[in-house]
């Protein structure tokens, strides 16, 4: 397959994915029992309003318009590059997402890199010798954290480090009551530590367990046996053959974990009141802010798709079996 065709194929795939995801999210939102007026205006306020006012509000929230008409209208705007205007924030969706994304991206990037590095290191430690002490400890740790929900870990961290020890702030992205000009980088970092830690915690176990499994298989392979027969030390076997052969799956795993980080961020940001993309998604979902939620969906799906595609491309570039195989064809 030549590269132009491949790129075309990827774009087509992405289009299909986005279409499927947006239709699903929209369908779920239309089925949602949440009444936008009651939620956002309030029962009492609604009662004191005139019929005219209520009608105006209904128009604003799109009550009574058939879902297909609303979806097609939204999709038409999307194709023109317009994500619409957030009903809750009363600002263009793209602006809200841009701001939130900027807050979240550092948090997620930190969690992503942290879970990748620590997970890989723990996986190597465990997989070097299946059944050894390090393996038992790491596997035990991973099984515990893997079966613990991220939001629960977030609450425990919050309780221990913010409430009891008071080492770190209890939430938000910047100190309360400080003008944004005065916020320093160290303030931002201090606010990010706990959410990033909570977010990376579950990611670590996933990556560590996969890495362990792969490395253990490599260490029991014929070529490692032969390397030992040729007098290579355990250290040399691990570095020359072990790491070489697990680098590729680790890379794939790392890029595929982008989706998990995104998913986790929704819960973790909620716990820490961190004004990121995840929290905006929850607010938009609960408040029936359809344009904002759809916008977040599109952006998130695109980023996750990008992560998986990046893994695909890197694999093809790095693995000689795929690289040379493609050339031959």
């Amino acid at each position, binding site marked *: 397959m030549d590269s132009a065709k491949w790129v075309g194929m990827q774009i087509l795939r992405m289009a299909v994915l986005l279409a499927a995801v947006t239709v699903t999210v929209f369908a779920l939102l239309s089925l949602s029992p949440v009444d936008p007026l009651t939620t956002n205006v309030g029962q009492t306020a609604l009662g004191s309003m005139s019929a005219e006012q209520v009608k105006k509000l209904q128009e604003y929230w799109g009550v009574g318009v058939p879902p297909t008409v609303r979806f097609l209208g939204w999709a038409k705007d999307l194709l023109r590059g317009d994500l619409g205007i957030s009903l809750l924030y009363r600002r263009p969706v793209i602006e809200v997402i841009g701001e939130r994304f900027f807050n979240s991206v550092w948090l997620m990037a930190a969690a992503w890199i942290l879970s990748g590095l620590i997970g890989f290191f723990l996986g190597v430690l465990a997989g070097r010798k299946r059944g050894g002490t390090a393996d038992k400890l790491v596997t035990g740790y991973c099984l515990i954290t893997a079966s613990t929900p991220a939001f629960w870990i977030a609450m425990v961290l919050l309780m221990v480090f913010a409430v009891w020890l008071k080492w770190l702030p209890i939430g938000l992205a910047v100190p309360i009551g400080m003008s944004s000009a005065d916020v320093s980088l160290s303030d931002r970092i201090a606010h990010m530590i706990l959410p990033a830690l909570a977010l990376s915690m579950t990611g670590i176990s996933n990556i560590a367990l996969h890495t362990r499994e792969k490395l253990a298989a490599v260490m*029991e*392979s*014929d*070529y490692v*046996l*032969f*390397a*030992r*027969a*040729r*007098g*290579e030390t355990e250290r*040399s076997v691990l570095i*020359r*053959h072990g790491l*070489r*052969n697990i680098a*590729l799956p680790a890379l794939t795993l790392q890029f595929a974990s982008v989706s998990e980080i995104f998913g986790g961020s929704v819960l973790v940001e909620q716990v820490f009141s961190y004004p990121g993309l995840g929290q905006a998604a929850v607010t938009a979902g609960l408040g029936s802010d359809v344009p904002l939620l759809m916008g977040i969906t599109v952006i998130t799906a695109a980023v996750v798709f990008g992560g998986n595609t990046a893994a695909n491309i890197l694999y093809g570039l790095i*693995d*000689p*079996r795929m690289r*040379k195989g493609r050339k031959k064809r």
Partner: protein
Amino acid sequence: MNGHLLEVKGLSISFIQYDRGLHQVSLPVIRDLGVTVDRGEMVAVIGSSGSGKSLLAHAVMGILPYNASAEGEILYKGEPLTEERQKALRGKEIVLVPQSVSYLDPLMKVGEQVKNGRKGPSWREKCRRILGSYGLGPETEALYPFQLSGGMTRRVLISAAVMEEPELVIADEPTPGLHLDAAKRVLGHFREMTEKGAGVLLITHDLELALQTADRVVVLYAGTAVEETDSRAFDREDTLYHPYTRALYRAMPEHGFRSEPGSQPYVKELPAGCPYRPRCTMALPECSCEVPLRKTDRGFVRCIHREAEV
């Protein structure tokens, strides 16, 4: 130096396997095996495929898997081959030539694997020369294992072994998957090593090829060495002493192509005494007791029909 280059005495290797649930069974894959290899000599150990004879190679190299254990004595140059000696010698004086491409790192270039981590122009030069001597051009060095043909793989594995200028070469099934000419060529390369003074222990299931190149053969039946003899003993049936070896002789295409009924017993269901007893036409009641080794004019045989005991 006196004595044999390699002397294996009473070697038994067993495998721990989980049977039902947590019940462990020990599978005796090789029992009471004796074999010697001298300098400049090629000795073939012949056994059926999948009988665990690779473990013999692994036991000598000291790389048995964790669930296998070996008993018996292995002497190298007259001294016990302890774990420390194995560590010090393997890959240098004692080399293994494994059987297939799966023994090469799939993500490492051939040249790098043959050199085994050693750098510098002299090693590069040596690697190129050795590959060249097996008909592999310099372009082979940049290939990955998946790009090699079966015959090339064997020659690469042999090149890797020869890089070390070994004194003892253990070749584990070096010929399967090769057509006859290629297989003969591969065995010819091992023959060349013996001409340079190395001892070669060839582990194979291919009797015909082994007889063409090896000096002596040890015949395994269900993990037990039933006869050791020189290759020329296979020229005539009456120079072979064990009924199984004779059956092998008769099964060879040029000697009638006749097969005996039955098959080798699985190690879990071994009969007591001689493992060949259930199929043997000469079996006597005594055959179900421990059968000791007896000396012959050419080697030894494990059969009560021979007189003198070792």
